[in-house]
């Protein structure tokens, strides 16, 4: 393999020249090479270390978010029973074992926020864009390693602020992750004071981090591809990161603006979102603003945000499916075009979250049509995945099993979207448990399964060892089964008119019958959470004690990340030269091959052992 590597001479820069002598390096270059503890593990500029930092932070928030949800799930299961340990863990918010309703709202707020932003955006794209973009396009690092480091540390700061806000005596924000004003603007409301300000500051920092990261990914993908790596040869994870980053760069600033205006309404006496409010026994002076303006600004990001999460997930899953089906991805170009059209359409559907906000019905109907249009590229992707495994030779690795689970759950979630995108149906379903079921199936389950698939698949690349396979399967079962049992019934609850964000179902006669299902859901949630402990054990155990892969390409994949000399490469990724690319990333089982069933991207055509192509040779 290494002879082959050395054949591809290309784009070597001063960057690697200094590789074997440490003299005369700039300060940044020394830092980048990570020679001290600090520059190697903490303030590292190496994209692989930054990827791990994102992953660990994401995992931390995953646990945190999960624990928060268990607390409010227990409340829903036992709304009138004092739960003694609430007082122990929550202090004044759980006095006498009764959860404070404001704190319930805080719990759902922080749960939603950290899972959407910190786990599924930071943890998922942050990790895999960082890990895979340079490795799969054949670059030694990001275009700006420094900005990349800054991106993580801004994210870290956002995390710290959010974390601190949870424990302050004034209570964490309680406005829901959507933070609609006037609720979020009235700082005299319980839990809407300092907690809400910290929430906003944290989100602003997170957006800055996402912009730093996104700029870097886009620049890197456009400028740093190795010789021969045309855009049309990019592996799909890279396309996913690219498209999601462009989407983020265009939409995140709008949320930034929304957040800053909200801060102004809170503290500078402005009236962007406020008008005609009588509150706390007095009429507020604000006049002329509109809470609907905030909703437009929020969902102009909020909708793209869900695709910022799912598009990278789609890319990662496409790769895992192709590698383990030993078959090219079906419709590579269609996959790229559909991702691009999802991105484009994402900007034209945001008001489907606002069908019943009093918006002009004509506008509503337009948004209904655009929303259903976005289902078309989504369906193209689903069928392409199905056709990818069709007539494949499926190697059912844990990663593959998770990727298949992604496809199964994405189907359910996408079909739920058809109900909600239908404006008439949304009059019933908006702000009911149907919405909760829908987005948890697509994000909470689907995107999370994709993230696990990617972790199992690229774990050797990150840590140089393999994860325990059997535990991977057990983890899969302990994840998908409880997750579906939690979220599918919620669709039915929504159709039966159960509103979301309810502290208890006690006040309504027509909700009482759902109490038993609440208990069931809570039990399943606990089981699902316990399943994640298996993953955590496997993850940390395997970092230190996992089996070493027998070769540097354990999955027999075609992409460049598996061509590094070391399983978990160090600074600069390739010790020798960066390989040149000769073909697309999905040359699996081409009929002309003899002994193997794949041709890596970097193998020159003349080195392929071919056999004469037999005409008509159906596999089945």
């Amino acid at each position, binding site marked *: 393999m290494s002879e082959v590597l050395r054949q591809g001479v290309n784009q070597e820069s001063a960057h690697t020249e200094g590789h074997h002598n440490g003299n005369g390096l700039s300060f940044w270059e020394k830092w980048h090479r990570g020679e001290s503890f600090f520059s190697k593990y903490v303030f590292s500029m190496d994209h692989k270390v930054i990827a791990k930092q994102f992953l660990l932070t994401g995992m931390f928030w995953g646990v945190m978010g999960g624990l928060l949800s268990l607390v409010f799930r227990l409340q829903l299961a036992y709304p009138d029973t004092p739960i003694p340990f609430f007082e122990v863990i929550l202090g004044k918010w759980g006095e006498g074992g009764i959860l404070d309703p404001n704190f319930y709202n805080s719990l759902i707020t922080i749960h939603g926020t950290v899972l959407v932003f910190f786990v599924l955006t930071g943890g998922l794209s942050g990790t895999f864009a960082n890990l895979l973009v340079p490795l799969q396009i054949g670059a030694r690092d990001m275009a700006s390693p420094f900005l990349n480091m800054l991106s993580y540390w801004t994210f870290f700061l956002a995390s710290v602020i959010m974390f601190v806000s949870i424990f302050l005596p004034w209570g964490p924000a309680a406005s829901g992750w959507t933070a609609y004003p006037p609720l979020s603007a009235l700082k005299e409301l319980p839990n809407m004071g300092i907690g809400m300000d910290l929430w906003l500051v944290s989100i602003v920092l997170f957006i800055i981090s996402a912009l730093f990261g996104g700029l870097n990914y886009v620049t890197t993908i456009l400028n740093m591809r190795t010789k021969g790596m045309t855009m049309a040869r990019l592996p799909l994870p890279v396309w996913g990161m690219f498209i999601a980053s462009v989407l983020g760069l265009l939409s995140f600033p709008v949320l930034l603006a929304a957040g800053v205006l909200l801060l102004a309404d809170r503290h500078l006496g402005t009236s962007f979102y406020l008008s005609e409010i009588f509150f706390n026994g007095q009429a507020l002076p604000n006049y002329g603003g509109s809470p609907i303006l905030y909703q437009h600004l929020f969902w102009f990001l909020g909708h793209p945000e869900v695709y910022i999460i799912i598009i990278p997930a789609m890319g990662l899953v496409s790769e895992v499916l192709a590698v383990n089906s030993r078959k090219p*991805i*079906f419709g590579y170009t269609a996959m790229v075009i559909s991702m691009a059209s999802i991105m484009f359409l994402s900007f034209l559907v945001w008001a489907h979250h606002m069908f019943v*906000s009093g918006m002009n019905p004509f506008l509503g*109907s337009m948004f209904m049509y655009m929303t259903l249009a976005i289902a078309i590229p989504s369906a193209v992707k689903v069928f392409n995945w199905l*056709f990818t495994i069709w007539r494949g030779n499926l190697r059912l690795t844990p990663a593959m099993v998770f990727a298949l689970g992604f496809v199964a759950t994405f189907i359910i979630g996408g079909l739920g979207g058809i109900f909600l995108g239908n404006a008439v149906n949304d009059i019933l379903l908006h702000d009911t448990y149907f919405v909760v079921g829908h987005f948890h199936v697509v994000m909470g389950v689907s995107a999370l399964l994709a993230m696990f698939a990617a972790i199992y698949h690229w774990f050797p690349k990150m840590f140089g060892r393999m994860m325990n396979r059997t*535990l991977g399967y057990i983890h899969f079962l302990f994840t998908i089964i409880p997750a579906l049992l939690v979220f*599918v019934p919620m669709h039915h609850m929504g159709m039966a*008119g159960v509103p979301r964000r309810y502290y208890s179902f006690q006040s309504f006669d027509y909700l009482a019958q759902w109490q038993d299902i609440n208990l069931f859901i809570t039990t399943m949630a606990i089981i699902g959470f316990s399943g994640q402990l298996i993953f955590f054990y496997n993850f940390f155990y395997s970092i230190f004690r996992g089996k070493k892969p027998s070769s540097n390409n354990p999955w027999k994949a075609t992409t460049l990340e598996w061509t590094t000399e070391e399983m978990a490469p160090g600074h600069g990724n390739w010790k020798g030269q960066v390989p040149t690319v000769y073909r697309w990333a999905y040359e699996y089982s081409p009929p002309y091959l003899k002994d193997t069933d794949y041709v890596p991207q970097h193998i020159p055509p003349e080195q392929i052992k071919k056999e004469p192509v037999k005409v008509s040779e159906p596999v089945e």
Partner: protein
Amino acid sequence: MTFGEFMLLVAGIFILAWIVFAIGHLIELNKDPEEFTDSHNKRTAWAMFIIIYVGGMLASAYSVWYYLERKLPEPAAQQGVWIQTINDLNVLATGIVFVITTTMLFLYIIKYYGRKGRKAQYIPGKIKVEMMIVAGVAIGLMILILPSGYYWFQIMTPAPKDAIKVEVTGYQFAWMFRYPGPDGKFGKRDWRLINPDNPLGIDPNDPAGHDDIVTTEFKVPVGKPIALHIRSRDVIHSFFIPFFRMKMDAVPGVPTFMWFTPKYTTVQMREKTGNENFVYEVACAELCGSGHSSMRTTIDIVEPQEFEQWLNKQTAWYETYKNKQVIAEMK
């Protein structure tokens, strides 16, 4: 289940999980993680098929049955009938697509699991197939959306001229109603005039408001179009009538509208549901603070003559207001 039993159950599940887990860990120790034998793939494929697919389909069927036992009674407003029809249409259409695609997925898994000596077929995709997918999905969606395009405007058009007007105001954490009185006109409102005697901030100098009726009771006649003018005094709320399948946000500073024609009186609905305590409950569907989940009110749907009688018995808001002002001045 009591809380104690529940905790026991959970503890049991945990212990079970950890036993399975320990076994799994040991099994793998003497295996090569890169070796995927035929039997390994076969076992995994069939396990997925049976546990996830067969189990999932059975669970879905059970879940649908469970839902049918608990679903809302027949919609009690014409608009709700349309909404429910669209919803059922969606259930049917997506149900079919769900079964087809999921079956494809899992059939492929048990059919094409990896075996030595077998080779995947090299199919990079065909533009024709992609075009067919796009066309098929587009046509399917178009058919699905056509009736909705029509009903949406039926539901969202301005209310008919002869509709009975009622103003709904949400505030933390209750609802208040205003009827326009004999003149059929609401008096002007200004939030700066709100005080305990004038909870809606009706302008006392506007004669149109003098006969307005302010009440916490919501009564409407059956069979007549009812036009709601929805407002909020503080944060966003949402006026959600599950039995009509309808909701509309109440937004401070931005009036919103909704209209419907009730089909059954409360009494009729009691007979239909066989529940003698049945009332049309109204919920708040937009997070509005700590009392969100108890922001309940009810609609009483009555025969038209009963409605007239009830309305005639109400005193106009201004009468009480005026008297209170007089008393205040005397003090």
